[in-house]
C-alpha cells in the first residue's frame, strides 16, 4: 500500500435506508452493493446473475433511480435511500401492479431475473407512463431473461402500464379457465 492509502481506514461505516428501515454496517471498500444488500442485510430478493453489469438481476433503486448494484461499491451508497424487491408488495401481501401484471401475464418462469425486471420496469414506467411495445423492448435492454423469450415480460409491462394508468383493473378477471374450457 502506498502512503496515502495506508492512512485511510480499512473499513468504512455505511448507513442506508432500505425499504424504509435504517441499517448501518461496516464494510471493506471493495464490498459491492449487491453483496452488502444480500449478505450483510440479508435481503436476498436482489440476485447476482452475471456480476458484470450486463444481466440486470441485481437492479435496485438507489435514491429512486434504477441501477445495477453489482457495479456500485457499498461505500458509494452511504446515506442513500434504497428500495429492493422486498419493498414492492404491500405488508398485507397485496402485490405491486407490476408484480400483479407478471402474475397474470405469466411474465416469469424460473423467476431469477424477475426482481431486477420489476425494478427496471418501475423506472421505465415512471419515465414513460405509456410506452409503445418497441419502447418497452428497448427499455429492457439491460435485463436478461433466459426462460421466457421476453414475449410475456413485454405483455406484463404493457399490462402494468394499463393498470398504473387506471385503464385495466388491478386484478384482471381470470380468462385462463374460460380459454381452457373453450378448447
Amino acid at each position: 500500500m502506498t502512503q496515502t492509502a495506508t492512512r485511510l481506514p480499512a473499513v468504512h461505516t455505511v448507513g442506508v435506508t432500505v425499504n424504509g428501515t435504517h441499517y448501518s454496517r461496516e464494510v471493506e471498500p471493495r464490498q459491492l452493493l449487491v453483496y452488502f444488500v444480500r449478505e450483510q442485510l440479508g435481503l436476498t430478493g436482489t440476485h447476482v446473475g452475471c456480476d458484470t453489469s450486463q444481466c440486470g438481476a441485481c437492479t435496485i433503486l438507489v435514491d429512486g433511480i434504477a441501477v445495477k448494484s453489482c457495479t456500485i461499491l457499498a461505500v458509494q451508497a452511504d446515506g442513500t435511500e434504497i428500495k429492493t424487491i422486498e419493498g414492492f408488495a404491500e405488508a398485507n401481501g397485496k402485490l405491486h401492479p407490476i408484480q400483479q401484471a407478471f402474475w397474470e401475464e405469466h411474465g416469469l418462469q424460473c423467476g431469477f431475473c424477475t426482481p431486477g425486471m420489476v425494478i427496471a420496469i418501475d423506472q421505465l414506467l415512471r419515465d414513460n407512463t405509456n410506452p409503445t411495445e418497441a419502447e418497452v423492448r428497448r427499455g429492457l435492454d439491460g435485463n436478461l431473461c433466459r426462460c421466457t423469450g421476453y414475449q410475456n415480460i413485454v405483455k406484463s409491462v404493457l399490462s402494468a402500464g394499463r393498470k398504473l394508468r387506471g385503464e385495466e383493473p388491478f386484478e384482471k378477471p381470470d380468462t385462463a379457465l374460460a380459454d381452457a374450457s373453450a378448447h
Partner: protein
Amino acid sequence: MFPAKFAYAAPSSLQEAVGLLEDPEAKVLAGGHSLLPLMKLRLAQPKLLVDIGRIPGLSYIRTEDGHLAIGAMTTYREIQLSDEVHKQAPVLAEAAHEVGDPMVRAKGTLAGALAHADPAGDLPAVALALGGSVRALGPGGERDIDLDGFFVDMLTTQLQEREIIREVRLRVQPPGSGAAYQKFDQPASHYALTGICAIVTLNGGTIASARIGVTGVGPKAYRPTAVEQALVGKSLDEEGLKAAVQTVADGIDVQGDIHASPEYRAHLARVLTRRAVVQAAERAKG
C-alpha cells in the same frame, strides 16, 4: 467477483481530490461503470479510489458562450433527459441514449467516458464532431484541453496523472446544421463496433461543411478530416457520397477482434459515415 483490495477516499472538494491523486496508484471514481468492471477482472488494480461522487456541484448542464458546459458527475441519463441538450445539441442526447442500457446510463458519466477513452465508447465520437474542450483541474490549477488532440491512444488522453476533468465543454450545434449518430453495436454490451457522428450544414442542395467523429474503428476516436473536406460541395447523391467517405479508415490502425475483423470495421465505417451524413443532411433541411 471482487476487486483487489484498495483504500477509499471521498473528498468534499476537487482540490482535495487532486491532492489525493499524489498517490501514483490512485484512480478517480466517478460513475464507476468502466472502472469497476475492469477492477473486478483485475485488469486495473488501483491502490486508492478517489470518489468524486460526493463533491457538491459537479452535476449540471448549462449553456455558456456557445457551449454546453457539462459537469464532471453528469450522467448519460441526465444528458438524455436534459431540455438544454435537446435544444442545443440534440445529437448528444441521441448518442447518450445509445450507451449501454438504462441502468448503466443512470451511473455512467460523459466526463468519465472521455477520461477513460474506450476505443469503442459512443460519446468520444460525438464530442469530437461537436468540438470543444475538456476543463481539467490539476496541482498547477485549471486548464482547457482542446478535444482535437485530447485522445492520444487506446485508453490514453492528454490528462496528466493528477488531473481531473471538472467540466466538458461542447460547442452547440451550429444554426442550420443537422447531426446524426449512426452505430452498429455489439448486441450484448452495446459497445460500438463502429459509431459515426456527422454534423452537416447545407448550401442549397450541397454540403457546405461537415464534421465527422469516428469511434470503434481505431485504437482511439478520431476525426477523418480528409473525408470532412471531400464532402464539401458534394450533393447528396449516393455515388458521390460513397466516393467522398471512401478514405474514412485510411491511415488508421483498424482494430479486429472476435466480433469484427479490421476489414469489416473499415467497411462499416464507410457505410455508416454515408448514412450519418445523409441523415444529418435531412435534419439540416428541417
